[in-house]
């Protein structure tokens, strides 16, 4: 460990057999500029992922349960671990933008919605062109149906969880039902959207990041350790 750095203490990994479904995930703020060599010691049970901070730095997160305390229940129940988020997103294939996810989340709570698109945009908190694009994405992927265009200003949207992607979709939806899960997936989407910055250039200066979505990655409940400052 470099001198002068502050290390976020990692809890001992207890293994999943000790987990119970009543644990609220520990939330730690990121500590930019801090590096820990403990990450290298992480055992397989430790969860790691990477994302950009609000300042454009690349972070890696390690999540380990406290002694005798499990991961957050949704993780345990759904058996989705952050490294698996990528796999789920790969399976679904269609999700590219945080708005895609948030629309999906909205329709999972309102599986049959009869709305004008302006109102829909207000509900999810993105601008109208982005909502329109995301709607097309979900419809093209067969996750959503929309009533045919007509003279009616409102359209009937119907979530179609019975598609071939149903299982993956329901797993993802249960995972993102928590603030932490949603933030983790949004982060993963952003990582996918942003190509790796050229050597010597931070992602912030590359200017490829999307604007911050509704949820900030700062709320992600993983213990953070800076791997690449």
């Amino acid at each position: 460990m470099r001198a002068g750095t502050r290390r976020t203490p990692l809890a001992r990994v207890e293994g999943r057999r000790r987990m119970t479904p009543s644990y609220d995930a520990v939330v730690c703020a990121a500590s930019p500029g801090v590096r820990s060599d403990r990450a290298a010691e992480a055992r397989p049970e430790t969860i790691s992922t990477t994302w950009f901070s609000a300042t454009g730095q690349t972070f890696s997160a390690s999540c380990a349960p406290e002694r005798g305390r499990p991961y957050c229940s949704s993780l345990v129940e759904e058996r989705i671990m952050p490294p698996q988020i990528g796999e789920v997103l790969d399976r679904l294939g269609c999700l590219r933008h945080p708005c895609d996810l948030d629309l999906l989340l909205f329709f999972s709570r309102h599986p049959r919605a009869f709305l004008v698109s302006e109102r829909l945009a207000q509900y999810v908190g993105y601008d109208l062109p982005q909502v329109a694009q995301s709607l097309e994405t979900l419809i093209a992927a067969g996750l959503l149906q929309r009533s045919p265009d007509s003279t009616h200003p409102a359209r009937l949207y119907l979530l179609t969880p019975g598609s071939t992607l149903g299982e993956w979709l329901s797993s993802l939806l249960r995972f993102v039902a928590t603030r932490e899960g949603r933030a983790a997936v949004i982060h993963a989407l952003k990582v996918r959207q942003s190509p790796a910055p050229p050597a010597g250039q931070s992602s912030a200066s590359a200017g490829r990041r999307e604007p911050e979505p509704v949820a900030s990655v700062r709320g992600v409940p993983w213990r953070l350790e800076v791997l690449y400052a």
Partner: protein
Amino acid sequence: MPEADVVKTGINGLDEILFGGFPRGNTILVSGAAGTGKTTLGVEFVYRGARQFHEPGMIVLFEVAPDKLVRDAALFGWDLRELERDGRLKIVFTTRQVFQQELLQADSVLLAEAAEFGARRLFVDGLVPLPEPNGGDSRDAFHLLAEGLHRENLTAMLALESTFADAEAMRAPEEFVADTILRLSIEPVQRAVLRSIEVVKSRGHEYALGRHSFRIVNGQGLEVYRRVQAPRGVKREGGASFDPTSRVTTGIPGLDELVNGGYFVASTTLVVGISGAGKSVMALQFIAEGARRGERSLMITLDEPPAQVLRNAHSIGIDLPSVIDRGLVHLWYEPAQEFEIDRHFAQIEAIVEDFKPKRAVIDSLSTYGSSLGASERSFRDFFHAVVALMKERQVTAVYNHENPEMLGMSSMMGEFKVSSLVDNIILMNWVELGDTFRHALTVAKMRAMPTRRTTHECEIVNGQGMKVLPRPLVGALPMVPFASYVGLISRAPERRGQVVPERAL
């Protein structure tokens, strides 16, 4: 009305006050302040329709997220997701503006969606007084909406939000257009609350007027209880026994002789006396006598929990658990802390119709009086309903009533004047002789039977119960004419010094 034209709600007790259900195609407005149960009522209406009557339904929501509605419905055991999967229910989330505009369209997507799966019922949650699109009044706007629904022959229930606690103040223009209006309210009653439902109007059929109580029961849904005062029909009101010969024995040694061999079948007997005078003992012996004869008896206890009643019975030699096990006695205890009189009566009605007792005891009426507060009318209405029920079902009933006066009685029922409703009245008194209070019993009233109204001593023996002691005097006391007294009407008569011949006065 043909049965096909009646939409049963399936909600426990509601169809009874609607005399079967709503006329098909009615637009039903459910008004009430927040928390009165509008959403639960509407969702249950659609759920029961889909589940019990094979009538698919649609629920339209404006503010409540469908997943929350599904979650809340699960608390009542209603699986809305299952109905959706089976194509019997659709839950649509929209906005009020879109909804209103849609119903004005000839090719409404919403109504087409309802028609696609054969929806017969619709529930719209969270309507507010509608603004008319072209600046007209909300009554016109609601009329257009109702027309749109009528076109599809949907029986629609619309929950109209109101922020007013006062029913008159919340009268909305929509109420004049709707076919049926149900008004839900919550009123505080002695620090508790009482939910009530009122059918304000309903076109095309009869219904029970007035405010009826209801509860929202976890795992079940709504339970509506017809108000106790509402007439139950000619049969009940005219119910009585015409048998002048049969007698129902009292179970008190010595008492049957005083009441001409027993009470009439289906008669109403009031036992009045201060606490400790022996009313509950008499009641237990009446029940035990029924069991001995193989007759079913119902005992309703409000003051003492069952274990205590069993112990009391044991102390006078009555094995109550054994007769309960043999199905001869139904002991029903309801604590009187938060009394809902409509519900309580509905429960008594259900027990009587199910258990079919020949005898019944309520111990005691005074508990109803204190639970209902100072409302003499409520008490009388309730008692009248119970008496009518028992007479219709040919149940010989004994009601205990605690009189607060320790020695003597200036009034049998105190502020609750129901003695005109009863056939027989037995007064239980204490008589202070020397340093001892002794039990005294007077048969004060026997309708359609002769009675001497003499006071008899009785005693309660441990392990044996109560018995009326024989009068030690042989023959009756000589009757002294009224003329021998002064102050008869003042209730403090005194003997004159000398008997004056009547014709000399």
